[in-house]
Every structure is written in C-alpha cells, then in structure tokens.
C-alpha cells in the first residue's frame, strides 16, 4: 500500500483518539467507522486506478464529533464540529474542523487530499497499434488543499476576518516533447503551490450586510524534466531524410512565480421591505514570470532551420500580466406577496499581455546536403494579448402562491467582445488566430410548477439565439427543455422522473454544427415498512453531434460525428432489523456509440450492532469494466472490507 496514504490514515485516526476526551462532555456526539479493506484487480490495473483507485489498507470510513455546550461560560469553544473521512486505502481524504464560541469567534479549518492517477491505454498513445500501453501521458500525483478562516465577533456589526488557503499539486508524470521531427517521452517531477492569505471585514446592520476583503495570492511552480529511460529512439522509428532521429539526453527545468492581489467587495441589503439590492465587485491583477532552461543532445532534424543538428541549448523567459475585474448588481422587487421581479446587470473585463523571449543555440548543425557545419543562434521575441469584455443584462419575473401554481419568465442579453492580437510566433498557416469577435446572445425562458397533494410537476424552456459565433462549436440557436415529476404517494412509494432535451445548432455555411442531447431518468422508491427500502432506477442518456471538419493532410472536408447512448440500470435494497442492517446495490452502465463500454458495479454491506454504541460491518464491492474494442483496457475488481463502528 502506498505509504503516503497509510500515514494520512494514521493521522486521521490519531485525531479521533485525541478528541475523544470531548466525549466526556454532556452534549457530545461521536460517530466513528474505520476498518481494513482488501482490493484485488484482474485485468488492466492502470485503468482501475484511473477510474476508482481503491487500495488495500486501513480506511477511515468516517469520523464525526459534534460538541455543543450552550451553557458553558469558561471553555474556549462552545461548539466544535470535526469531520474526517477517507485516507488510507481511499484515494481521497478530508478533514474539517468548525469551532467557535457564541458571538465571540468562529474558526474553520479544512484539509483535503486527492490522489490523482491516470494511465490510459489509448489516450495520447501513438504506439497503441503496436501494442504499447499505457499511453505516453501518465501521472500519479497528490493534491493537497488546506483552508483556514478566523472570524472575530461573528454576526456583529463589524466582524474582522482573516483566512488562508493552500493548494499544492506534486508528483511524477510522464509526458512527451516534440523536437527534431520526433516525439520523445519525458519524466517530469512537478511541485506547484498556490497560496492565498486574505483579510478584511464582514459587516451587518439591520438593513445592510456585506464583505470587504483583500487577498494576496501567490503561485510557485517548478517542473523538472528529463528524458525517460529507453525513450531516446522516439516515436518515429523511420529515418528523416535518411537520418535516424534520436535523443541522447534532455534536461529541462521550468520555474514560474506569480502574484495576484485580489479585492472582493459585496453588499446586500434592502431599501425597503419590498426592494432589495445585491452587488459585488472583484478585481484580480495577475503578474507572473517564468524562466526555463533546456539542454538536449542527439541526432535531430529541423525543417525550420533546414538543417540537421546534434544539440540545443535553449533558455526562455516570459512574463504575463492579466488584470481582470467583475462587477454585478441585482435589484429585487416584491411587487406583491406573490409577484417578484428581479433585474440584474453584470460586467466582466479580462485582459492579457504576454511576452516571451526564446533564445536557442542549435549546436553542430549541417545543412541537408551534409555541409556547412556551424552553430546557429536564434532569438524569438513574441508578444501575445487579448481583451475580453462581457456584459449580461437580465430580468426575471416570478409568480408564486397562485393556488398550487408557480410561474416564472426570464430574459437576458449577453454580449461578448473579444480582441486578440496577432501572435507572430504561433502562425503556421495564416488566419484563425487573431482579430476582433463580437457575439450577442438573447435568452428567453419560461417555466411553471404545480404542487398538488404529494406531487410536484415542473417544466421549463430556455431558448437562446446568437447573432454570431467565435469558434465553430458555438451555437447560433439553442433550446433546452426540462420536465420533472416528483410524486410521493403516501410514505411507501415515491416516483421521480426527469427529462431534458438540449438542441444546439449553427446552420451557417462552413459550420453546419448540430448537437442534440436527450436525458431521461426514472427513480422509484418503495418503503413497505419504515425499516425497508427498495429502489429501482433507469437512466438513458443520448447525445449526437456532427460538424464538418477540414482534414489537415489534404484539406478535404469530412464530418466529425460523435454519438453516445448510455443506459444505466440500478437497483438497491436496504433493510434494518435490529441488530442487523443490510444494504445491497446493483448498477450497470452500458454505453454504445462512438466509444462502447460496459461498467457493472455491485455492492453489499452487512452490519450488526453488538451494543447500542458498538457495531461492525462487512462490505463487498465489485466493479467490472469492459470496452467493446480495446479488450486490454478491461478490468474486474473486488473489494472486501471489515469495519468497526462506534457511536455515542
């Protein structure tokens, strides 16, 4: 088992022990469930880890402590809430602490960890036909997110607040690099940290409340890469102009630092009982610098230079400035107890100015006739930029309490202006990379709901119409229809049905984009006795898209089509008959269309309470994944677990 997971599970369990003295307090509740699980996988273990990633080992299924002391005048906190789950054999783990004391202070701390693994056999894998798997882009990284916030005198007229957030991703991956007319696998070790500290006030009067916060966000990222062992031959085993292209050595180091001051202001309040205002303003000014150095040697070809070369010494320094702001205001009018009108306006502006200086020294170059040996120095200075402005004006009318009916109407105008500067270094074939683009979208929507007895039925329709597109998959016309039935027939039957249809199209000459999605779901729950629940569910997801594309090798026109037809069947059974409880689940998701596969999941859990406070549970989970075409992606996995639970 992965040691990082073991250590975190140990930390979580240690926390559980440390806080157990709180159990002595009169109003303290504790739930704890922890145990051990065994995982066995047959077939493609990489695909299992990519999708599920449970491991053999200790697992903290859940720990919750709730301490409430409404009368204490001396303790440091009169409410403490701790929740922890995951870690160990589970790929994710989380820990959350909330504590406070009346209206004196409030403190929140949370930590989450995610194991991020991906090793797909077919994705980004040019050597799949030769039986080489997984693909050349694999990673096994950890993400850690820590957040803390402290409020002094919460819910007072003025509440000072300070907070901190840390987000780290680190770990190895394998990637590729295109150089000298071939692609080579590289090993990368990444460590990126984003931190933000912020402070300010919350304020609240009888009519107005809001926030004024100033944050400072920093980013520090380092990525060190080198050629993967045995990868010097590259993906292209053919010669280029009669020369074997190969790479003997490569090292690259990239370091990025950035700072972003972030200002956030919000205000909420009411001019009168019938008129309310919500407004916010955010400004973030990003300023970042990147430095990179790269050294490589081998036998390589450059068509840009028209030469063979045996080494490259490259350094890159770049700088990015990106100021952005976003403002929003919304007025709500209670025209009567049943009628409400909301008017909103939002504006957003984002700019980018980027510069890069790329200095390259090509070593030992020869022209294609094998003559004129020399080193060639090349300096590329590139400037890139854009400005995007978005505006949204919206109105919504809501009629509520008219008998069992609810109605709403809405309209909005969205406007986007985009101005991209020409990036000379990027252009290979002119056009499609710069210019001014304007797009206006008109939105109209209506909906209704009716509540009769135990049934709630609702329908809504949204229609969007655009005057232009920016990219070819933007819609010109889009409609979305949704319907919902939620019917609770006495306490023993509940039927839930939802349906959605989204149609997007652009019939313009040269675009011809068409996309339709239908999604229906039914869920039936039977509760013949209070302690027993039976559930069956069916879900059908259909999507079809088509758009003409220009095939690069001969510039001919073809149609890109994608189809999905996913059908999900689920059934579940829960029964509590003291001191036992049973939980059974079955689900099968089959997708046909462009990428066919089947995923079956079975789950069984049998629990027993030895006493009111102590119990145990046995678990079994089964996952079977099969692809229609690529059999080597398939896996079957079983997970068995034994868990002990304690409650007081």
């Amino acid at each position: 088992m992965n040691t990082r997971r073991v250590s975190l599970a140990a930390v979580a369990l240690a926390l559980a022990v440390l806080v157990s003295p709180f159990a002595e307090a009169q109003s303290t509740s504790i739930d704890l469930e922890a145990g051990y699980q065994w995982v066995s996988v047959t077939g493609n273990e990489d695909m299992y880890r990519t999708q599920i990633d449970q491991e053999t080992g200790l697992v903290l299924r859940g720990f919750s402590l709730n301490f409430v002391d409404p009368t204490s005048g001396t303790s440091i906190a009169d409410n403490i809430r701790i929740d922890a789950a995951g870690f160990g054999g589970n790929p994710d783990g989380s820990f959350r602490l909330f504590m406070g004391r009346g209206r004196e202070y409030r403190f929140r701390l949370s930590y989450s960890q995610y194991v991020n693994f991906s090793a797909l056999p077919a994705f980004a894998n040019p050597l799949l036909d030769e039986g080489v798997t997984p693909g050349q882009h694999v990673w096994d990284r950890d993400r850690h997110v820590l957040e803390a916030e402290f409020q002094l005198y919460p819910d007072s007229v003025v509440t000072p607040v300070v907070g901190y957030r840390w987000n780290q991703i680190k770990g190895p991956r394998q990637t590729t690099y295109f150089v000298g007319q071939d692609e080579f696998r590289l090993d990368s070790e990444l460590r990126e940290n984003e931190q933000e500290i912020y402070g300010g006030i919350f304020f609240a009067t009888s009519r107005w409340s809001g926030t004024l916060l100033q944050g400072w966000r920093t980013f520090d990222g380092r990525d060190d890469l080198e050629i993967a062992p045995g990868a010097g031959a590259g993906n292209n085993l053919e010669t280029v102009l009669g020369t074997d292209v190969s790479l003997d050595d490569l090292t690259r180091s990239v370091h990025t630092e950035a700072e972003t001051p972030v200002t956030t202001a919000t205000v909420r309040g009411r001019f009168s009982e019938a008129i309310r205002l919500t407004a916010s303003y955010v400004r973030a000014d990003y300023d970042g610098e990147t430095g990179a150095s790269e050294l490589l040697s081998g036998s390589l070809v450059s068509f840009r230079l028209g030469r063979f070369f045996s080494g490259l010494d490259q350094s890159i320094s770049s700088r990015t400035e990106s100021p952005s702001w976003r403002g929003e205001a919304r007025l709500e009018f209670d025209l009567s107890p049943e009628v409400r009108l909301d008017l909103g306006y939002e504006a957003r502006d984002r700019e980018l100015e980027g510069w890069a200086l790329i200095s390259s020294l090509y070593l030992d170059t020869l022209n294609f006739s094998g003559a004129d040996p020399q080193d060639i120095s090349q300096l590329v200075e590139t400037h890139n930029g854009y400005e995007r402005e978005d505006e949204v004006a919206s109105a919504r009318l809501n009629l509520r309490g008219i008998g069992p009916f609810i109605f709403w109407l809405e309209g909005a105008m969205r406007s986007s202006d985009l101005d991209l500067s020409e990036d000379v270094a990027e252009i290979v074939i002119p056009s499609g990379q710069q210019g001014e683009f304007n797009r206006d979208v008109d939105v109209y929507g209506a909906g209704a709901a009716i509540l009769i007895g135990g049934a709630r039925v609702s329908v809504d329709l949204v229609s969007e119409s655009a005057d232009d597109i920016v990219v070819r998959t933007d819609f010109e016309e889009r409609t979305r229809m949704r319907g919902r039935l939620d019917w609770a027939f006495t306490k023993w039957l509940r039927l839930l049905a939802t349906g959605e249809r989204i149609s997007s199209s652009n019939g313009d000459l040269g675009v011809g984009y068409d996309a339709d999605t239908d999604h229906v779901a039914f869920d039936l729950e039977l509760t013949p006795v209070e302690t027993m629940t039976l559930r069956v569910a069916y879900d059908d997801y259909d999507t079809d898209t088509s758009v003409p594309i220009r095939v690069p090798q001969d510039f001919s026109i073809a149609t890109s089509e994608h189809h999905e037809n996913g059908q999900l069947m689920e059934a579940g059974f829960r029964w509590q008959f003291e001191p036992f409880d049973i939980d059974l689940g079955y689900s099968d998701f089959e997708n046909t269309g462009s990428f066919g596969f089947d995923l079956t999941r079975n789950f069984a859990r049998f629990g027993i309470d030895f006493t009111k406070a102590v119990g145990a549970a046995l678990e079994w989970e089964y996952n079977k994944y099969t692809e229609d075409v690529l059999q080597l992606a398939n896996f079957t996995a079983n997970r068995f677990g034994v868990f002990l639970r304690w409650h007081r």
Partner: protein
Amino acid sequence: MRHLIRTLAIVALLPLCLPAVAAIAQDSADASEDCAACHEEVVAAFKTTIHAVAARGGPSCVTCHTDGYRHMEEGGDVSLIAVPKGVDAEQLCLQCHKAIRTMFSVRSVHSDTAVSCVDCHSIHGSTLGLQEKMLAKPTAELCATCHPAAANSFRRPFGHEMEIAGLDCASCHNPHAGAGIDSLKVDRSGEGPCVSCHAEKRGPFVFPHVSNVVGDCMKCHQPHGSSNPNALIRSQVYQLCLECHSPIEGGTLGSQPPSFHDLYSPRYRNCTTCHVAIHGSNLSPQLLK
C-alpha cells in the same frame, strides 16, 4: 510584502483578544426544558445542533413552533402548535439567516419551485447520524433525491468521483443559488469552481488556449462524469481539436493545422501527444511544452 506582514501580525494578535471578549457571552434560559417533558428525544437531538448554541439569545423551540402552552394544556393537540412547512418554513428561517435570503431569493430554482429549507436541513438534528450543516442526509445523497440525472452522470467511468471523502455537489454548486450559471460557485477572484482545486490550470498563460478566451473548462470537459477518457466531450482527441481548428469559411477563431498532420498516422490523431500544454503555456506558442 508589507501588507502580508501586517496581515500576519493581525492573525497572531487575534487570539489574544479572546479572554477580553469572553465576558461578553451571556447565558439565557433555555425554553426547551418544558418541551422536553414530552419530546425528550427531539430536544436532546436539538441540543446537538448549532442552534442550541445560538439559543443563548437565539432560537429555541418556541421561536419556530410559537408558544406551545395551549398545546401542552390540551394534552399535545397538534393543531395547537405551529409546524412550519414549505414557504412558511423558508420565511421563518430567513428571518435570521439574512445572508442566505438575498442569495436564496434570486436565481434560485430551489426557491422558485418552492423547495424550502426543511426539505434539505433537519432542524432537530439528523436521524442518520451526524451530518454537517444539519443536513438530512450526506450532501450527494441528498441532492440525488431530486436530481437523479445529475447523480447518475457520476456513474460514468471518467470524471470526478463522488465516493467517500471526495467531492460532493456543494463543492461546486451553491444550493442556495449564487452568481454563476447553474448556481456554480464563484471564488473570491470571480472565477468558477474548477480552478479552486485545479489551480495549475488557472493561468493566465502567455500563450492561452480556450479558458477565459473563448469559453471555460466545459468547452472540452464534462465535469460530472463522462463516457470519454479524461472526462472529455469526445472520445477521439483529434475530433475535439479539429471541430474548432477547421476554418472552412474563415471568420472563426481556430487555426488550421499544417498538412503534415496526417490523420492516417496515429501520431497525428492524438494531438496532445505533441501539444502537451493544451491548457496554456508560458514557453511555447504552439503549446508544445
């Protein structure tokens, strides 16, 4: 840097203020004791909730159920005690939870369709063990009771996991409604929820690609769950790329790949094999590193 030091100093000094403000705390009589004579379990559960702390000057049983003495005198006649439901319950909660009010009352489909606070929150404490934020069930399970299609999309093999200790619906969505489309959360810098975790994709980059320029993460990804690897909206990478990078009639953004990108070769059907920095790069205009 000066701002940073000043802020850190404030953080360090704040705990010193605690003893001084401790005297401000005032205990008040708990009006729940009379109710406990009959509703012992309910009152006991209520005392485990944050409301019990707020009871020192805040709500107790009578705050929501009104004066229950006639109810007691008449031997527990349920018609003589208020049991707020639906819109009435919502209005009652919002009397204190003012910050929620302005969010919940606008753009919230939950509010529009008369889903009220008590549909999700168990005010007396959860019957299913300890739940955060007084929720009636764990978040993902709770949302699934009304949003089966969204919940089912997590059954697809590629995408975010909603298993134990992972994400839940409220990680990205604000059930009380917020400024973003589909009630998506917006962080302090006005950006969507994806980059709150995937900070390395935030950029901005010297050479950006889609995000912030012509769309957001959902232009290429299905965040709930996808039938396609890497939670993409297409199973083949070249399709995803060429659908924009085919300026057939011109006038659209998206450059034409040069002709050596021969789709008969698997090297070129997998665009990201070479264009590895597909979310943006500070080093390569062609997103090659």
